């Protein structure tokens, strides 16, 4: 069936209002069940032994003493996880990341696991496992890893994207290039050329809920997995493949999720829990400690980026080039490529080039972190934009407006834009009262723009109408932030019934067809689209039932405000039939009424944001305080404005932490030194002011309501917005993220010395 996806600029009755979320009461009473909140009779405690070395050959693992300890029911190593990936390198990398195969590749890399009757026994068992390591040289810095002679992380890797094809192993797994035009010619005719290099340190998504699962595999090869995840269908596919189970025979139920932000899109310990359960023939509950979460899940990249911008003195950019080096951890991935793609997405450029390097180091396998790769690239680009604007004496907002991408712009990463929000967010920023607020001593204001692609993906929903007219909506995208409310709003809007009559649940893998992971800001966008189509399918059935009841042609039936209405004068005597009435009659008119939809939700709309912030810098200590922060972002259509605001604020808060204090600190020994919330410093309540938000709605023409994904874009601008504010407050240009007080103070002191010397 062809779906009408054209945005029709409709008036909404329910969408856009702010009702209470359906899972709210469970969450405020402690009833909601997260990953670690499930219990099974006879369950065992699973724990993981992890490498204390950044890079080491595993010569031998002796588990005999551990296996003999009373209360231990299973011990596994990579020997219990044979390679069933049939040449799928990505799957093999996943398997190897879950448990080392002959080599420990980072501090925290799993080498063995135990299931025992209680935590104390399990921990004792870990101590009894003897691992014979041969320590190898390691490398943890992205630039160091690219130097000749650097320790090689993956000997099988040959750099792709370079000619001639290399024959020697490299830590550069791929080089990618994007852009168009002739940047050298562009720089040649520029009046001003600014070139700078930047570094950003590694950060973690920092979700408050550690990874946790309860796995149960029976002797018949069937299994169940309760897990906190952003994608239970993806987890099912991966776990079944790695364990050699039939996909349909592994039922994965997603618990409520205590934060993901991209970090729970991959398996880390789940295959281990399943393997332990299979070996022990008992359920195994495996909960990661906070230390393990930092050391052995998927943080984002640390980067090293060079940016060059040339412009005429009236503010037109003539050429823009970025060279981006991203470390992917110990396994090849695409994060450098994504950085290269997003770098210049906000601007309309004649000559533009981005070169992205994906580099291997002895660190954990990088996973997505909310608009992955974009924040670092934006930090480098948007900082340089301010430098160029200052050099030509132009207001930074005006400079960006002059060069902003618009409908019809050929994006630096390839496609041509439809209607987009970058111009409107910049205009809104220019006119925002924040821009006119007075600044006190030692305070500076900065702004920056950001972009994210957003994704669609495979989606499947079921809409079932109960005989009392209430609606069960089952979706397959995990609800990470309140989407059940938005999806209920959409179903209610389509059907024309009150919001309270819809109950939205996340179905397990046995209940629906495949749903892609909740990532790429696709949850509301794609499940929303599938909900619309499922509702419209149900409406077709409702109309048929009305036609049957009235004994008229279904072509004469219209669905209006929650009721079937008979058209045409000759049917004027027929009273409306409400959804509830049709539902009540359904056992006699043909059985249960439902609508179903599978869709690959194409046409996700890109989302742009402009942020403004005021920072105060203590010039004697380098300490920063966020005085004021404003997020302006295009949402296409805000289904539930409270939750759209929540995404803006939460993303901005993560960006603020990233900009000011969060970083992975590695020692010379390649070990992570701050694997806890004490020294991995995310913002606390007293660190932040209220975060103002302004939702713009430039409809996405590819979605029936104009929806764009909103969850990710606002983590992109803060690094540069704050860097620009710090620069204006303290008179120093910061090129290293995070801008922690020691770095800022050092920059201030250096500048002071240069001023007195010069």
């Amino acid at each position, binding site marked *: 069936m062809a779906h009408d996806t054209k945005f029709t600029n409709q008036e909404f009755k329910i969408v856009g209002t*702010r009702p*209470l*979320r359906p*899972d*709210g*009461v469970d*969450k*405020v*009473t*402690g*009833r*909601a*069940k*997260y990953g*670690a*909140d499930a*219990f099974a009779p006879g369950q065992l405690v699973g724990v993981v032994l992890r490498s204390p070395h950044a890079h080491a050959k595993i010569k031998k693992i002796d588990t005999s003493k551990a296996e003999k300890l009373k209360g231990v029911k299973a011990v596994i190593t990579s020997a219990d996880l044979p390679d069933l990936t049939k040449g799928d390198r990505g799957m093999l990398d996943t398997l190897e990341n879950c448990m080392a195969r002959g080599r420990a590749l980072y501090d925290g890399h799993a080498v063995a696991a135990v299931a025992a009757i209680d935590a*104390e026994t399990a921990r004792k068992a870990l101590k009894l496992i003897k691992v014979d390591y041969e320590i190898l040289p390691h490398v943890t810095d992205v630039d160091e890893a690219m130097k000749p002679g650097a320790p090689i992380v993956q000997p099988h890797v040959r750099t792709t994207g370079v000619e001639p094809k290399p024959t020697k192993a490299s830590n550069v797994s791929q080089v990618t290039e994007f852009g168009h035009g002739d940047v050298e010619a562009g720089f040649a005719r520029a009046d001003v050329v600014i070139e700078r290099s930047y570094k950003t340190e590694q950060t973690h*998504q*920092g*979700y*408050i*809920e*550690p990874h946790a699962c309860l796995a149960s595999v029976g002797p018949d090869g069937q299994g169940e997995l309760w897990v906190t995840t952003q994608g239970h269908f993806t987890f099912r596919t991966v776990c079944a493949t790695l364990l050699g189970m039939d996909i349909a025979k592994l039922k994965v139920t997603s618990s*409520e*999720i*205590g*934060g*993901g*932000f991209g970090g729970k899109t991959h398996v880390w310990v789940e295959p281990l829990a399943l393997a332990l359960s299979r070996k022990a023939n008992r359920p195994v509950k495996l*909960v990661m*400690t*906070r230390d393990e979460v930092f050391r052995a899940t998927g943080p984002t990249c640390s980067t090293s980026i060079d940016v060059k911008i040339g412009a005429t003195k009236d503010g037109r950019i003539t050429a823009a080039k970025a060279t981006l080096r991203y470390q992917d951890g110990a396994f090849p991935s695409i994060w450098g490529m994504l950085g290269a793609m997003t770098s210049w997405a906000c601007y309309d450029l004649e000559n533009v080039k981005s070169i992205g390097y994906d580099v291997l180091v002895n660190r954990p396998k990088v996973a997505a972190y909310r608009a992955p790769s974009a924040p670092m690239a934006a930090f480098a680009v948007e900082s340089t934009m301010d430098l160029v604007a200052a050099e030509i004496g132009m207001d930074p907002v005006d400079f960006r407006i002059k060069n902003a991408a618009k409908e019809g712009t050929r994006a630096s990463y390839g496609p041509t834009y439809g209607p987009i929000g970058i111009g409107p967010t910049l205009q809104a920023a220019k006119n925002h009262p924040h821009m006119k607020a007075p600044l006190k001593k030692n305070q500076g204001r900065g702004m920056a723009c950001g972009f994210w692609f957003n994704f669609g993906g495979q989606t499947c929903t079921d809409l079932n109408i109960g005989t009392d007219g209430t609606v069960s909506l089952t979706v397959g995208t995990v609800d*990470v*932030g*309140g989407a059940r409310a938005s999806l209920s709003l959409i179903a209610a809007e389509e059907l024309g019934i009150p919001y309270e009559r819809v109950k939205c649940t996340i179905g397990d893998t046995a209940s629906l067809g495949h749903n892609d992971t909740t990532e790429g800001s696709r949850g509301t966008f794609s499940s929303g689209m599938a909900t619309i189509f499922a509702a419209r399918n149900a409406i077709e059935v409702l109309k048929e039932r009305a036609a049957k009841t009235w004994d008229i042609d279904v072509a004469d039936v219209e669905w209006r405000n929650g009721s079937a209405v008979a058209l045409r004068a000759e049917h004027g005597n027929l009273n409306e039939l409400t959804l509830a009435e049709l539902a009540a009659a359904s056992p006699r008119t043909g059985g249960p009424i439902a609508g179903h939809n599978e869709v690959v939700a194409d046409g996700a709309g890109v989302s742009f944001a402009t942020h403004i912030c005021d920072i105060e810098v203590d010039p004697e200590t380098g300490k920063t305080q966020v005085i004021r922060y404003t997020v302006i972002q295009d949402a296409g259509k805000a289904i539930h404005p*409270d*939750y759209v*605001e*929540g*995404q803006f*604020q*939460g993303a*901005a*808060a*993560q960006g603020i932490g990233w900009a000011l204090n969060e970083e992975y600190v590695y020692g010379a020994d390649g070990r992570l030194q701050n694997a*806890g*919330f*004490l020294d991995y410093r*995310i*913002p*606390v*309540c*007293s660190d*932040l002011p*209220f*975060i103002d938000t302004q939702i713009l709605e430039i409809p996405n023409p590819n979605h029936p309501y104009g929806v764009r994904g909103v969850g990710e874009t606002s983590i992109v601008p803060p690094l540069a917005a704050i860097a620009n504010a710090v620069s204006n407050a303290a008179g120093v240009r910061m090129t290293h993220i995070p801008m922690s007080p020691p770095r800022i103070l050092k920059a201030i002191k250096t500048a002071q010395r240069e001023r007195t010397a010069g």
Partner: protein
Amino acid sequence: MSGIHVATTINGDAVEYVCDPRETLLDVLRNRLGLTGAKEGCGTGDCGACSVTLDGRLVCACLVLGAEAQGREVTTVEGLSIDGALHPLQTQFIAHAALQCGICTPGFLVAAKALLDRNPDPNEQEIRYALAGNLCRCTGYDKIVRAVSAAAKDVRKKQR
């Protein structure tokens, strides 16, 4: 292993359990008593997701031994609503969209209640500093602070 027998009061109910000396109150609440509202976010007292009150004082249950609850009074998020009626904090958290994933919410509610019990009319800064021991990664704290203010007003109205 020698278990310690503990007789305590939890959310007003008399409760007895046997626990290992090394078990924390958080372990006991979650694994022995089925009170999974308190969450383990870090195990080191840095995130506040396990906040409960002990003899009326706000504590991290992960840093209290199960044995220490002997003869004391513990309240958890499960004890916040009275006879099924939500506390104004709970109502306002939902109304203000002060939760997204909700994992930190039980800890915030217990901490906010402890604040309102000692300061019924806190200003923004007082709220922020009182809640500094509770980490949230989803909301940026904005709507949480607003919800606490609104709830404080509700509680003051009720008490008049």
